[in-house]
């Protein structure tokens, strides 16, 4: 079934559980919506203080501060880029040296077979080219993209996350996760439309 299953927070949870036939193991997590980034950040910080560790947010644009609030680690992309970029540098220099001085040493215009001076432009360009690919592909890789399906998309209003809503997610594999409580916690920090989303 690909219709998003939501649960309103009214009523008895056990009963709901039984009606829906879902257990915590089949739950992706609990999601609640905010309408302003700063509300999201504040709420996120509170939830974190409650001891949750597996938190995420879904926002239409990069909300500054949310990473710290939810304790999301720094991106490693920089390291990827610099290492691949240096590979680019090496490739260029090796190529020029091998082509000019090893593969077919020809005197051209009385210039040396290989020289740093006339290698600069190509070396620079290849460095940049490699780095750029590293940055983009690295980003996608780290984000596990492309990925067409994701459980969080089952949240009724997930489409608003690319429009004007700021969603806070408590994932089910959080040791402290408990569907009922987490729902309450989210509500307590002012989230609207809190739902338990099935995995």
């Amino acid at each position, binding site marked *: 079934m690909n219709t998003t299953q939501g649960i309103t927070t009214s009523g008895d949870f056990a009963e709901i559980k039984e009606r829906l036939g879902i257990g915590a193991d089949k739950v992706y997590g609990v999601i609640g919506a905010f309408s302003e980034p700063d509300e999201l950040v504040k709420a996120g910080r509170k939830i974190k203080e409650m001891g949750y560790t597996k938190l995420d947010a879904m926002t239409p644009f990069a909300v500054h501060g949310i990473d710290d609030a939810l304790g999301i680690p720094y991106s490693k992309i920089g390291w990827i880029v610099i290492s691949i970029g240096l590979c680019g540098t090496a490739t260029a220099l090796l190529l020029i040296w091998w082509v000019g001085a090893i593969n077919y040493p*020809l*005197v*051209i*215009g*009385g210039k*040396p077979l290989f020289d740093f*001076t006339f290698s600069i432009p190509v070396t620079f360009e290849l460095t940049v080219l490699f780095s750029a690919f590293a940055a983009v592909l690295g980003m996608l890789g780290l984000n596990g993209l492309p990925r067409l399906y994701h459980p969080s998309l089952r949240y009724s209003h997930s489409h608003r996350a690319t429009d004007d809503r700021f969603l806070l997610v408590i994932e089910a594999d959080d040791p402290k996760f408990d569907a009922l409580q987490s729902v309450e916690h989210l509500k307590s920090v002012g989230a609207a439309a809190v739902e338990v989303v099935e995995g």
Partner: protein
Amino acid sequence: MSLISIKSKTGPKYWRSLDHLADTPEFREWVHREFPVSASEMLDGKSRRTVLKLMAASFGLAGLTACRRPVEHILPNVAGIEDYIPGAQYYYSTAMPLGGQVTGLLIETHDGRPTKVEGNPGHPSSLGAATAIQQASVLGIYDPDRSSKVLEGGKESSFPKFEAAVKALSLADGSGLRFLSGLVMSPSLSALRAQALAKFPKAKWVEYEPVARDNETAGTTLAFGQPLYPHAQYDKAKVVVALDSDFLGLDSTAPLPTKLFSKRRRVHAEEDVDKINRLYAVESQFSLTGANADHRLRLRGSEIPQFAADLATGLGALPGTLVVVGNGSGDKRTKFLGAMIKDLKSAGTEALVVAGARQPASVHALAYLINQSLGSLGTTITFTKPPAEKVDPNALSGLEAFRALAAEMSSGQVSTLVILGGNPAYTSPADLQFAVALSKVTNSIHLGLEDDETAAAAKWHVPEAHYLESWGDTRARSGVAAIQQPMIDPLYGGRTAAEMVALLIDAKDKKAYDIVKNYWLNQWPGAGKDAAAVKEKTWRESLNAGVIASTKTVENIKASVDAKKVAAAVAAEPKPVAAGVEVGFYPSAAAWDGRFANNGWMQEAPDPITKLTWGNAAMISPATARAQNLTDGDIVTLSRGNVKLEAAVMIQPGHADNAASIALGYGRERCGPVGQDVGFNAYLIRTSDAYWFGQGFTIAPTGKTHKHATTQEHGTIGDQGVNAEHQNGRPVVREATLEEYKKHPKFAEEAQEVPALESIYPQVIYDKGYQWGMSIDLTSCTGCNACVVACQSENNIPVVGKDQVMRGREMHWIRMDRYYTGAEDDPTIVEQPVPCMQCENAPCENVCPVAATTHSPEGLNDMAYNRCVGTRYCLNNCPFKVRHFNFLNFHKHDPDVAGLVHNPDVSVRMRGVMEKCTYCVQRIEEARINAKVDGRRAIKDGEIKTACQQTCPADAIVFGNINDPASRVSALKKQERNYAMLAELDIRPRTTYLAKLRNPNPELQA
């Protein structure tokens, strides 16, 4: 902008052509027009096709294709040919007659195709050199537009039919029979003529050439009372005076005069400095001789007889006192005359005065008289008797004979006219109405290379065999005879003149080979039983040497001039009339008298002086242009009496005022596509009374204009604001007078403007093995173009056509740059051949993205055509602009046969690739392989001759190994006059120049 103007350190200021000196309104208007849109490009490249197609000798393409590649067949001969190596080149001797002169040649052939013409060092009128026209003549043999069929009344016929028709002719005593030929230079043909005239006693044989030296012979007859052949010994003369004589150019179809003259124009050692000769030129049109003269006087052709007379008087050769014609002592003519007289006197027996073919007999006679009075007769100019066959009393020759013939024809006295070669219907003087007269002849037979104007007018037309495909013989004016042997069977089954005559008189031998061979076998003494063998041997030796040994020595005639007769003749000369414009007629440096009009190489070879290609023009002086209110390219009507011609004018600095000169040989109406309607037909106004020059022409603008295809102007537009002085300071051609040279011998180096750049990289050292280099002596170079055409022939350089030339896309690997110096009205000219400089730090190499042009260990700037992608970056970055790009497929419209002229040792470049001079690397490699194969020896100095060097009549180009201190080129490069163009760019050119020296008369310096 005086602030920024350059002060030139040395010598004269250069300006390139009028539009730079004059800022003409027409040009300014042109400038204002933003981007005149050219019509879509025209692909009229007449040029040559890839070699692959042409290995007809051994390969043939097959249609089949295999799975992986097309099947190529090898078709070997069925029977082996002894000592024949496929693909190798062989040289055969022959001789080319033109305009009454003969030049002995060696023809390079590949697989039976003649591909290249070179001079025969053993032949006295070549000495190894060949002129541009001779170089180009090899293209003529493959001319696809050459006549290939017998025509009767313009309809296709056949040889048998023609022979039958000839048999049917009832010639009786030949009273109605006339022969018309060019100047007969062939002993065997002369013999046949004698037979013919013996068989038909009433017949007549007329020799006529539109461009010939009749006046010269007439001059000797006048002066010595007998016809003699004069031979100017330019190498013996210290002071040469040329009276309207272009002996370095149009007046000699043989390279000999240049060869001799340049011997005294070369400073290779200290003592040569004092040997260097001095040349005075008195002429109307700016000629090569004028360009190379130390002093040049502009006079109209009709004023020159008076000048000659004054000169003779001044030298005391003529009685009377010198009457100064001109406006007082300030007049250049007077000064000139005075200085010249002194100079000639002091030169004495080393003086030489020559008159040009255009001048009347009296002037020639005067010249001989002057030489006699100077005591130089017999030293600087010698005389020989014409060969026996030439003094035949029945032999009629020259304009008078031709005029008489025309009269006979039009009065219906001629029933049978046999035209042996030539194109009289086109070349005859306008007033003789030859074409009309021809129509009155019942049986007119035309033997010709082309289906031309005459072929159309004649009843019968028979294709003539090209000189490279026919057996024949020649006797030069010096008396030396040579066998003319064919390189290939007649491609279009042509006949030779001798064969025609033999057929007509039903002689014993009818094949050219038999005619020639038997003639000579009979000439040679031989008795006893082995006579035959001896003669056979002589025959082979003659073929091998290219000259017939027994004819080598001809004794010089000691004759003296009859001053009185000459004086009388001079007095009888009509005095020039002031009225109207004088028009002079000159053979074209390209088309000659029109016979080479369909030769692409010649059409595209820029005129040595005007740089005009693909056409001629009426040359007028700037003053005349101002007076007539004409500008470059205006089409005018030249008319006189009932003849008139529309022709475009071209402004020629230094041309005589109130006169126009126009080259013959253009405006052909019935010709191959190459020469069809190119230029203006000057024969239309050349009448027998205005044969070389005629006065009283009127010149009237038509309002129409014409665009000249010049290679050095290329539509560059007259400068605005920036006056032409600006690039004058550029030390491109460096020259000095002898005095200056003696004062500072290093003037050439000192001329360098800009401080030299230095490389951030260590200089690559070329000190191993052969290091090729070239030295070009600007002092001896006359700018005759022979090198340009030789290069074209050697390196399969395409012809691009008029339209492409106008777009600046001509392909000549070595070009002849011409710069004017001095005043617009009376400038001097310097010529500079510019091949690739083979820079050691070549700017072109650095910028090629695909390494298509790289440096060889021997210092050559290699060009791998097959690697080139054609970015043209190298062309941009070449300071000399000697790289040439195939903008279009210049071989597209080639007929297959045209490709047979290709040199198989050089690849034919395709569209979209760059090409350039490589010092004839194919010759270098060949020499290297030969050297290795025979005993791994080293290549000797002078063993490799580049095509340009090989043919240079002035020996101005020397190529060799600069790593060998003993080589000629190293010696030359050690000279103080040695300089490299644009050396300041740190490009280290391998081609260097020896600065030009002039030897002016100090008196005329001021």
